[in-house]
């Protein structure tokens, strides 16, 4: 039976959906639940990774160190994973949390910019951590381009390459084509990270697995940016039906969802109109709440902001452009700003 490694992103991507306001105690309790359900790897921290707490992305309730300390204490078996986006977080930030049992670092860049992660992959490897080359917004370029950047990450020493549909804009064929191209280009395992903005997260993950993906991300109840990620407990059930081994106990993960996650979710993780606009336009999933706030402040339609951001080919991390676009749209409508 083929084994699929599942990485839970509820406690990192889910932070986008709660404006990074989980407490360390909540994060520790949720991580303990995930660990007991048999998760292989649990990613935690601010939605934008180490150093993400900021005016640009929103301040998190606690510091990276406070979250990692809580999770480090709570998790017994699973690998603790953190995201590091060069340009936002640094090797210094990584050093500051290593003592809490971090095992995996996902070094994350825009799909065309893998070379900004060379230092960080090198540092992680030198310090005995699993280093992952994580390519964001892979819908924006051809499968060949994704493969080229994946090879760069492999050359820096990445242990596996993750293809992310950060905008939730891919159709199943888009996911499969990119995974196939990367599989053909590198000799390390390949992963896939989905968003459900077009309602296709589970389908895209399946397409990725059929195309050869070895690792996939999911989050409990889909808790994540935009319309969220591939819903973890659903994914576990579907993969069981298809005969894949995940190591996760279906009933336990369902119980974790109902008992631990449902009470803290700020809203049901559905494909809202704004999330749909993100997927349709190919904008970054974590823009959702930022665009809604800017729409209210400047009196414009949040969907117009998101569609315009997609049209301008805005990349992950450009939350400040949301304000800029909202101001431009308000001016075009003849409103005083």
């Amino acid at each position, binding site marked *: 039976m083929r084994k699929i490694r599942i990485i839970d992103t509820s406690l990192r991507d889910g932070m986008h959906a709660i404006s990074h306001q989980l407490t360390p105690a909540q994060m520790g309790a949720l991580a303990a639940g995930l660990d007991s359900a048999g998760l292989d790897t649990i990613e935690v921290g601010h939605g934008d990774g180490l*150093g993400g707490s900021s005016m*640009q992305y929103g301040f998190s309730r606690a510091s990276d160190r406070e979250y990692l300390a809580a999770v480090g204490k709570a998790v017994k078996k699973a690998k603790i994973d953190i995201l590091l986006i*060069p340009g936002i977080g*640094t090797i210094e930030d990584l050093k500051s949390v290593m003592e809490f049992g971090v095992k995996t670092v996902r070094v994350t860049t825009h799909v065309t910019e893998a070379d900004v992660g060379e230092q960080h992959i090198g540092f992680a490897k030198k310090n005995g951590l699993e280093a992952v080359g994580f390519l964001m917004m892979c819908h924006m370029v051809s499968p060949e381009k994704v493969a080229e950047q994946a090879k760069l990450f492999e050359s820096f020493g990445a242990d596996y390459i993750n293809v992310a549909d950060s905008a939730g804009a891919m159709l199943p064929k888009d996911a499969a084509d990119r995974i196939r191209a990367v599989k053909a280009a590198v000799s390390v395992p390949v992963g896939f990270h989905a968003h459900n903005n077009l309602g296709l997260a589970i389908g895209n993950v399946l397409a990725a697995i059929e195309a050869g993906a070895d690792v996939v991300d999911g989050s409990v109840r889909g808790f994540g940016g935009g319309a969220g990620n591939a819903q973890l407990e659903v994914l576990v059930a579907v993969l069981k039906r298809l005969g894949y081994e995940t190591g996760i106990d279906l009933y336990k993960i369902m119980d974790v969802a109902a008992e631990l996650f449902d009470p803290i979710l700020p809203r049901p993780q559905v494909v809202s109109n704004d999330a749909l606009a993100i997927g349709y336009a190919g904008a970054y999933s974590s823009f959702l709440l930022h665009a809604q706030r800017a729409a209210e402040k400047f009196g414009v339609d949040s969907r117009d902001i998101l569609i315009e951001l997609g049209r301008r080919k805005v990349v992950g991390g450009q939350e400040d452009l949301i304000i800029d676009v909202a101001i431009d749209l308000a001016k075009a409508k003849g409103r005083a700003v």
Partner: protein
Amino acid sequence: MSKTLRTAVLGPGNIGIDLMLKLLRSPQHEVVLMAGIDPESEGLKIAASKGIATSLEGVQGILSLGNIDIVYDATGAKPHLIHAPLLKAAGIFTVDLTPAAVGPYVVPSVNIDEHLGTAMNVNLITCGGQATIPIVYGISRVTPVEYAEIVATISSRSAGPGTRKNIDEFTQTTRRGLEVIGGAKKAKAIIVLNPAEPPILMRNTIYTKCDTSKIDAIVKSVEDIAAAVRQYVPGYRLKVAPYADGDRVVTMIEVTGAGDYLPTYSGNLDIITAAAVAVGERYAQFTGKAVMK
């Protein structure tokens, strides 16, 4: 009276080439050498085509040529840590365009004269620092800035291998510059690369936590300092003038380059190379006075 400085540029990458083209127009500079280490370097070819001597010996090429008044180092943070003591031992004034930050920080619109009489090495922080520190300074001279955060977004095409390998140093040095020169009590810097075609202009967002009731005085002060930056970077403009948003002030700037080497979208090159030339021209005046004494 100012003297003409015998000038060498170290590091023929995007920044070094753009800088060289600006120095060739500066009456206070005579560019006598472009030094690199890669025989295939585009910058060495361009230098040769302008009749400038080139060297493949890097910093050693400069030291063995001798009789150099000023060196501009546009390599990278790690190489500059090697170059700085060698240039200092040779008694050559050095303008450091890497985020190595060996010498004191200089932002021409804020503190151009502070170190020119004393330091043998001055550091220009980063392109993001040159673009955003004047704004934070403009606000902190009106009212204390508890926290400043900047986001610099530059086109992928204008970020060469040096910038990419130094991305941690970029954020750390910019952050310290925002505190030391900008006057913020605490700071954070973020850089984002955007590969869109046609390439985007360099844009920067500056968030400052401060007393927003002083917004009118803040706007006036920021407009004044932006005008001072425009003296050496004509394409520097307020995209969104400072506005109060709760307990913070948000300002956005855009920088159109002069198009000397890379096209005008590369305002991030101009802002630091133009600052470098401004420092050199001012240094020439200092040196000229010294000569007259």
